[in-house]
């Protein structure tokens, strides 16, 4: 018996996307001056959860549909312990989003991502939002699980770094979206805004501990081709987040995501006990008023009930996080761009894929990585960024043998369009 089924037909949304795009192109051919850029909202106190709507969109006359997207491409030269595969050019991803207002209180937004060329096509977001009350909004469809802040606020052009943070892609499965529904709400007071989100979605599966990454790996759940059509085990994944932004101080987010990941029963037959995977994350960001320095940080803890009789290669605890510091150096008209800025930034990040000790020896299980990434970025406007990164990463295997060291120079561009 399936307890919960969230079902989503992907082909329909792809088709709809095609139609909308076509309509836009046709309109553009007839009258391009009628297009208006809908700028991002900078008046309110924006939260990470607002990132999906708070993007530059292109709108045609009064048509209630707006279109947007971004691209990310880069080149990199990396050397690991003296060995390099030379230069490579990477088309990391292209994302298209379409938003439409069906009613003053009903909005639809969808986001489709083409990753690594067209190797992966994902629906990142395709949800209907219905406002019942500012503190009670319904959201249903393909939802971005609000675990950590990066997952909600991952658009390439917003970051000074070519690579996504390790903790967001190696521990948390950014970008992680699933079919389901839930509620969110917000309240604005004079000096702060407080928000919550709670969703039930499809979610985890046993690839978490059965994957070729050879470690406990939440992102492996995304390899299940059926995950938009049915739940793996009939138990919904719960994701909840609460955020508080206090004026002049910053935004603090606390999030939780958890559910059963294994197939504990099939066709009514019990196969195993229910095994859970639970995630806690904390995120914080702020911009210092005087210097304009931005600080963004996030840390996540993962707990997975791995059977004792399975291999310790797949750990039951993981943790990791990152801290980004971005310092604008020059903000003025440069090279003919009105709102240009030149920034220096640095990211420090750490992940431990397997916290714990070997049963056989009591010695530490390593399987961890540390990286430091100084960066320079040039923004022609907040929407477009050229970035130059240097990455130094030290990674240690399970047994704690001498680490492999990687140095990489990365240059990339990311822009909304």
């Amino acid at each position, binding site marked *: 018996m399936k307890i919960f089924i969230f079902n989503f037909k992907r082909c329909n949304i792809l088709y709809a996307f095609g139609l909308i795009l076509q309509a836009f192109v046709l309109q553009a051919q007839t009258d391009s001056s009628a297009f208006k850029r809908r700028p991002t909202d900078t008046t309110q106190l924006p939260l990470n959860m607002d990132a999906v709507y708070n993007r530059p969109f292109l709108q045609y006359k009064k048509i209630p549909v707006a279109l947007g997207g971004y691209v990310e491409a880069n080149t990199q030269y990396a050397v690991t312990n003296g060995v390099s595969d030379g230069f490579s050019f990477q088309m990391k991803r292209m994302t298209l989003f379409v938003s439409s207002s069906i009613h003053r209180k009903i909005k639809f937004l969808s986001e489709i991502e083409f990753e690594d060329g067209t190797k992966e096509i994902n629906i990142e977001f395709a949800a209907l939002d219905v406002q019942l009350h500012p503190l009670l909004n319904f959201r249903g469809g393909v939802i971005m699980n609000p675990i950590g802040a990066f997952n909600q606020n991952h658009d390439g052009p917003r970051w000074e770094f070519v690579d996504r943070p390790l903790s967001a892609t190696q521990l948390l499965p950014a970008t992680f979206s699933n079919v389901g529904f839930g509620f969110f709400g917000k309240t604005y007071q004079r000096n702060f805004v407080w928000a919550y989100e709670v969703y039930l979605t499809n979610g985890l599966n*046993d690839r978490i501990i059965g994957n*070729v990454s050879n470690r406990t790996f939440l992102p492996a759940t995304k390899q299940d081709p059926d995950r938009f059509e049915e739940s793996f085990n009939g138990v919904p994944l719960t994701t909840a987040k609460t955020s508080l932004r206090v004026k002049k101080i910053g935004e603090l987010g606390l999030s939780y995501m958890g559910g059963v990941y294994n197939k504990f029963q099939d066709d009514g037959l019990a196969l195993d006990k229910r095994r859970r995977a639970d995630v806690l994350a904390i995120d914080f960001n702020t911009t210092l008023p005087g210097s304009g320095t931005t600080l963004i940080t996030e840390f996540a803890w993962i707990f997975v009930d791995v059977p004792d*009789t*399975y291999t310790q290669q797949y750990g039951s605890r993981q943790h990791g996080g990152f801290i980004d510091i971005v310092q604008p150096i020059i903000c003025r008209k440069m090279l003919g761009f009105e709102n240009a800025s030149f920034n220096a930034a640095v990211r420090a990040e750490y992940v431990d894929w397997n916290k714990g000790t070997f049963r056989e020896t009591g010695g530490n299980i390593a399987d961890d990585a540390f990286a430091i990434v100084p960066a320079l970025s040039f923004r022609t406007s907040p929407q477009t960024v050229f970035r130059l990164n240097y990455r130094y990463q030290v990674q240690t295997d399970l*047994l*704690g*043998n001498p680490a492999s060291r990687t140095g990489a120079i990365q240059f990339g561009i990311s822009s909304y369009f």
Partner: protein
Amino acid sequence: MICCTLLSLIACKKAFPPAIPEEEVLDGPIDGLTAQEKQQFLRGDVAFNDEVFTANKGLGPLFVANSCGSCHAGDGKGHPFTTLTRFGQTDSTGNQYLHAGAPQLQNRAIPGYVPETLPAGIGFSKILPPANTGLGLLDAVSDADIMAMADPFDANGDGISGVPNWVSMPAYTQPRPGAMPLGGKYIGRFGKKGAAYDLLQQTANAYNQDMGINTSFEPYDTYSHLEVDPEVSNATVHDVVFYLKTLKAPVQRNVTDEAVVAGRQIFQSIGCDKCHRPELKTGNASIAALANKIFYPYTDLLLHDMGSGLDDGYTEGHAQTSEWKTPALWGLGLSKQSQGGQYYLMHDGRAHSIRDAILLHGGESEQSNNNYQRLPQEDKDKLVKFLESL
């Protein structure tokens, strides 16, 4: 400031971590492979080091580890985490516990299955993974050369009586050219008891027994005991065998260091080299780069009675329970790099230093152990320096 750091990093070569010198690592191919051979080496490298088995890919249901590389990290020695347990055989009449999952304990299982446990009161050996380097050279030593080192009745009266392990060969392996069988049994040369005839048998067994992955060579599942479809192709198995054969021999370091030179002398003078033979040679070999080479593994590929301390009450083939094959000592000094920074020596890793390993030598090697203990401290240190240079 960050800006300057970045620029100076780019300008500076240190931005890119340098290669680790060849003699400091165990992996990499032998010299002299043709382009086609290098490609096969690379294919084997991927299958050995990168291929991770999951339940979907056939792992288990019972297993010990999920990839060759998990147990043989960097092609070096293993760790207690990846140690195998074997049980059920005490003499040459064979294993009496095949019905109970012997010879190898599959102590892990995919979710939903129960792994094996040891039958009560049974003798067993814990076996730590050895390094996989230079195996093609050891494979190409002629049977005649091995027999010439054997001295089953201690004819020379030195207290050392090495014997080959006479093993039954599985149907899928071919005898080497010039093989010298005895009563239908052949000289085994891989594994700590020398119970595997060649690298094909070792590999097919590893897939089957260590990971629960079936091949056309070893098609019986360790859980159901039924013949099942191959989960890895013959081509992949052959690539892995080729990879193992063509992994380079460890390169000695600090060869001219005074202490090392002196240590080498001491190694000989106290009789370590009677079993740990410094020099062997290969005969003809199908891979040209392996043929007619002189090399320095520090083994005689023979079994020796190591005394009661190392007798676990378990054996394989014709070996006695107290007998172990002399392990090659090449690469010894690099062991820690694949064992998580600490030595685990002897068959089960019970020795945590080279000194401890020597002190565990009993039986045929007791004399050399006594000789070692009588050495002045400074000579002991030189001996260890030499062993670490290997």
